[in-house]
């Protein structure tokens, strides 16, 4: 049996790496990838706690699947925005797309 503390530690590390990516990467697609990392960190916690809190009902696993559905929607819309941005500006570097209007 894997102790819950291991999962929690892993998820904290993964979340922080994702946070660093969101703050530090220049490219919009890379920022989206970092957000996916953070969502995955949340999912690890959901699944880990599902074993101890609701082993019969699997509530944690169910919510992990909800998170996946939302993440899929988020990725689709985010990438669509990136592609629209690239069409207009030929550039998806967030440092240079900071005027909120053009």
């Amino acid at each position, binding site marked *: 049996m894997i102790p819950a503390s291991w999962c929690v530690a892993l998820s904290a590390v993964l*979340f922080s*790496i994702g946070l660093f990516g969101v703050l530090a990467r220049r490219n919009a697609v890379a920022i989206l990838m970092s957000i996916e990392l953070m969502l*995955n960190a949340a999912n690890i916690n959901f699944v880990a706690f599902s074993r101890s809190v609701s082993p019969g009902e699997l509530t944690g696993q169910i919510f992990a699947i909800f998170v996946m559905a939302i993440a899929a929607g988020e990725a689709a819309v985010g*990438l669509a925005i990136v592609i629209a941005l690239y069409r207009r500006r030929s550039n998806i570097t967030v440092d240079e797309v900071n005027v909120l209007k053009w």
Partner: protein
Amino acid sequence: MPSVLQLVFLFFAAVTVVGALAVVLVRNLFHAALWLAVTFLSVASLFIVLNADFVGLSQVIVYVGAISVLMLFAIMLTEDVVGARGLSLRSAWPAALPVAAGVCVVLVRWFARYAWLPPQPPKPGGTAGTIGLAFIQKYLFAFELASVILLAALIGAIYLAKEERS
């Protein structure tokens, strides 16, 4: 002495962390997306180790098979064929480092204050049936809401990415 299962968990946890670091740090965006797929795959393996086989395989289908490929697709459409050049991190990245490290320390220390409930052995017969029933019974409203969100995302993505015709 850790058991075999624990060793497997540690291995995939290490792969996950290395992959995530590569996603954040690698300069070539295409490689970053491939590392993202590796990270997702190892997280899926972690799910299976944690008795969540249905969630693990859904993770492979949704994240590795769809989201990562979508990312690769967007990169191939928006970058030059040769690959991304120039700096991968913003000039202010040193400021992000203490923030992320601080969050990590706070999270770990805060989590460490609690004694977590010990994990229970899984029910026999797999998880797919239980999850499926819960979706159409207890969580029906949330399930329908999620499908509405997906539909909205679908329409929104098509509208945003569509080429404008004058």
